[in-house]
């Protein structure tokens, strides 16, 4: 079983089929293509998107449904083709969709709803699908989720 160095979990073994590939990298990280999605049972539903090329690079992400249950995915034709989807996912298709988290200088965690990571389970290919509209924010504060989830 191949092994890799990770940012949060030391050196771990992984199996090749669980690797996801970004054929175009991610904006700002065009050369990082192979990632391993990791979970920590104590930190569910957090996803650790660990780069296999850069041990120090690990994006923290959440399933989009956990952050914004009514999120309406919108991908352009280039992004669909890149990950081998023949048509735009319908609400029932549930492709794997994650949002990348960041923490601003104000220490408030936020989620990038403007550019979700979409993974085609059938091909293991993924893309960070940057929307060309501005319905969603790239710094959606996660404290707002708290309010909606409790109501």
């Amino acid at each position, binding site marked *: 079983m191949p092994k890799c160095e990770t940012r949060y979990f030391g050196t771990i073994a992984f199996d090749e089929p669980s690797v996801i590939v970004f054929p175009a990298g991610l904006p700002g990280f065009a050369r990082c293509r192979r990632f391993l999605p990791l979970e920590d*049972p104590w930190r*569910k539903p957090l996803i650790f998107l660990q780069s296999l090329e850069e041990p120090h690079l690990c994006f923290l992400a959440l399933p989009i449904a956990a952050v914004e249950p009514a999120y309406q995915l919108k991908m352009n034709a280039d992004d669909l083709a890149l990950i081998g989807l023949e048509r735009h996912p319908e609400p029932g298709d549930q492709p794997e969709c994650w949002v990348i988290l*960041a923490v601003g200088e104000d220490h408030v965690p936020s989620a990038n709803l403007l550019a979700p990571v979409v993974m085609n389970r059938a091909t293991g290919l993924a893309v960070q699908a940057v929307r060309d509209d501005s319905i969603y924010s790239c710094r959606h504060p996660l404290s707002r989720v708290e309010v909606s*989830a409790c109501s």
Partner: protein
Amino acid sequence: MLVIRRRAGESILIAGEIEVEVLETTPTRVKLGIRAPKEVDVVRKEVGLIAAENLSAAREISLDLLTPVLAMLDQAAVSQETGTHAGNRRPER
């Protein structure tokens, strides 16, 4: 801002080596073709914005800062899935 009017099939040239051609226009969209040297990075503007966001997201994040958010999301997911209140953890994937 420099404003130039062009029709489909016409081009502009930037710095003598970057050509932007208007390929097609519709009432709501313009299709552009760009010919540029390999070392010139061409991206949609919003992709450039996301690159900056990703660089920020790749910086060290204290997991402790996320703990309250995760606890709340996990509880919400569990009660949605099982119809019961938090306490039952979802099975490991």
